[in-house]
């Protein structure tokens, strides 16, 4: 289906994922996504805190074509979710960002630390000290690297952005709690455009703010509500190479798209179909196939976004939307005008 809204059109491509509580081909409460080299993608699974589900907290590596590649990170029991939790442990993982070498940096809002893994999932380090001083963090949410491998971190409970080098050394910071220009209120997602400008999902202020790379306020857009251009707790944000801005409007169950000036262009509400992994799962048990065939309104109910929490976009114009309770990623293709002329 094509969303016919000028000047940008999006065509639904496919859905990736299925509910998979323990690991392997599927996701469990995915909260973040990052596109890696080639067709790789990294999906952060928040899993559940119910102790019986192990090892549900993980980062899944798979391809855009839904080939499972691997996973890393693991869950600990809630009683062991403390600062001394083992290397590689995750408890409230919230985001993932890749540096220029493809290493994956995973933020954990409960453990207040960044865990670093190679592109294939080998643990290679961690950093982060809780607090509100320079370089200290309180519930790190979104992460994004700039072209020089500086890591911009949303330090959500300190209502600020902190910038580190990739070894975790503090560089600079900006932001304080509030509703004014440049002030933040429990911010969540972050992305950096090709010019180095920084976009922040100012979660509790229901708006997006744009800053220069040094933290100078540039613009804002959005307000609380359900209408076009309004938000109900925006979480993820991504900016494509042409400057279009994608916002996961979490509690409105939709993705909104804006032009580089923050003018609303269109919104997507989901077009999910049965994924490859999903098809494999239901085909194991014929009763699922029969039940799906009998279920009234399945297509309409199943396709829509529920809890779209994060978004990423790649240079091919593919938009990836992660849905928490549906354990999947919906992929859309940004349409470019094409002209086919020439001799017959």
């Amino acid at each position, binding site marked *: 289906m094509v969303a016919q809204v000028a000047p940008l059109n999006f065509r639904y491509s496919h859905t990736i994922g299925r509910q998979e509580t323990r690991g392997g081909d599927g996701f469990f409460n995915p909260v973040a996504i990052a596109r890696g080299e080639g067709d790789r993608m990294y999906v952060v699974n928040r899993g559940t*805190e119910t102790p019986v589900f192990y090892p549900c907290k993980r980062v899944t590596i798979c391809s855009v074509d839904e080939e499972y590649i691997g996973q890393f990170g693991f869950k600990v029991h809630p009683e062991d979710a403390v600062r001394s939790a083992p290397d590689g442990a995750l408890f409230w993982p919230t985001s993932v960002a890749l540096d220029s070498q493809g290493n994956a940096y995973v933020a954990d809002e409960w453990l207040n630390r960044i865990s670093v893994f190679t592109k294939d999932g080998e643990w290679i380090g961690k950093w982060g000290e809780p607090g509100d001083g320079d370089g200290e963090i309180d519930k790190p949410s979104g992460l994004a690297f700039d072209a020089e491998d500086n890591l911009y971190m949303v330090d959500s409970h300190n209502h600020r952005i902190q910038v580190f080098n990739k070894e975790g050394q503090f560089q600079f910071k900006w932001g304080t709690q509030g509703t004014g220009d440049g002030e933040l209120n*429990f911010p969540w997602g972050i992305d950096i455009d090709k010019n180095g400008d920084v976009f922040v999902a100012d979660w509790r202020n229901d708006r997006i703010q744009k800053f220069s790379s040094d933290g100078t306020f540039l613009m804002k857009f959005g307000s609380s509500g359900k209408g076009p251009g309004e938000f109900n*707790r925006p979480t993820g944000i991504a900016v494509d190479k042409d400057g279009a801005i994608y916002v996961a409007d979490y509690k409105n169950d939709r993705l909104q798209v804006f032009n580089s000036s923050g003018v609303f262009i269109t919104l997507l509400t989901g077009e999910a179909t049965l994924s490859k*992994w999903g098809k494999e799962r239901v085909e194991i048990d014929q009763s699922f196939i029969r039940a799906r065939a009998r279920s009234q*309104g399945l297509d309409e109910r199943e396709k829509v976004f529920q809890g779209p929490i994060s978004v990423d976009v790649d240079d091919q114009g593919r938009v990836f939307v992660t849905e928490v309770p549906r354990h999947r990623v919906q992929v859309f293709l940004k349409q470019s005008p094409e002209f086919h002329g020439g001799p017959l």
Partner: protein
Amino acid sequence: MAENDIALMGHLMRRAGFGAQYEELETRAAKGYEETVEELLNPKDHPDGMDLDLAERYFIEWNHFVRGVPEYITWRMINSARQLEEKIVLFWHGILCISDSKLQSYPTEYEELELFRRDGLGSFRDLLVGISKDPAMVYYLDNCLSHKGAINENYGRELLELFSLGVGMDGEFNYTEDDVKECSRAFTGWTIANSIPQQPYGRYAAQFLYNPDDHDEGEKTFLGETGNFNGEDIIDIIVKQPATARFISRHLYNFFVADDVEVPSWMDTPPADMETIKMLEEEYFRSDYNIKSMLRLLFNSDAFKNARFTKVKSPIETIIGTLRLVGDWATPKPGMEFIFDEMKYMGQEILNPPSVEGWHTGKEWIDGGTLVHRINFAADSVSNTEFPGVKSIIKKLADTGPSLSPENLVDGCLRMLGEYEISEETRRMLVDQNSKGGEVLTDSDDFDTTVAEALRMIVATKEYLYA
């Protein structure tokens, strides 16, 4: 401010909510009793009664309630400023029962709890219509298996027996077997859409569906009235019965005022306090079956005000009340599972009542095993000096003067727990236990632990089982 005002406020907050810390009791007592009743009935603060969005941010499973519903309800009971709304959810959850062990569909169960939160203080007629269309109930009591010409009586029977009329009143039966059948015929066609299977994308809430082709349009005679009744017509007849007024009044009395005998005995055992029940019955009809009106009258009645410590706390009241008292779980953190384990060990697993009859209450909550868990949970909580509520109690007692006699220590702790009343014998025992060191200096290093120990001993008394 008179101590009695705070004691009365403590009573109101334990019954109309899950208890409150001493500071809140002082604030509310200063506002006044009737004003607090009104505020509980018509809360004007935040629509959720708390900053729910922040909790949702970390308890990510609450999104669309595919999982995490017990955690969500528990969080609300602990943290909502709209305490009566949460209490009424628990009230109806124990009467209009469904069970997760059969449904295994949290999003569907969530919808029912929201029905209780939304309509639980409104018209009982509307609530009965709502519960009859509630997909969780339709499935739980098999109304989806009841068809024109082949009825399943399960829902029709429980609607009459356990949800509205009760088996009998004043020694007389309230309905006949024929009424059950006719009632069931009227609810044919009230069914659910076929569910979306949980694979591959997780569970979806079930949906109510009215299927006119499967509805028995024939004439029915129910409780002496004849017509082509549909389900709503049946409910209209049910709610105007004196037995329904009695049934709801006894439930409200049993939950909010004092322990009654168990429901199956209500036919032959008259209410202990007939005067109050009559008052509630009259208000039920006067207000067009409005639960809020009945509760307003009840909370402002002498019968309610004089019923302090006459009711055994349910496990959920014990746990939530203790957590509110000590100030635990005011912010999101890992490990909520242990709360449900405690509820289970104490005999009240949320979303899993033992049968459609709900939980038996009163002294049936207590046996050797559950008692140990109650005492251990409460004792461990109130003696943890890291909890903000315990710290606050210690500070308030320290602020009373340079030293405390054993008597003042015990009395002070009882006051901080919401003006708890205990027998003179228990008080003497507590004072004796706390007399070993004589006067306690409030600036001494071990004052914290001394207070914590005193609190630990108080919550282990028989009196603390009651609210």
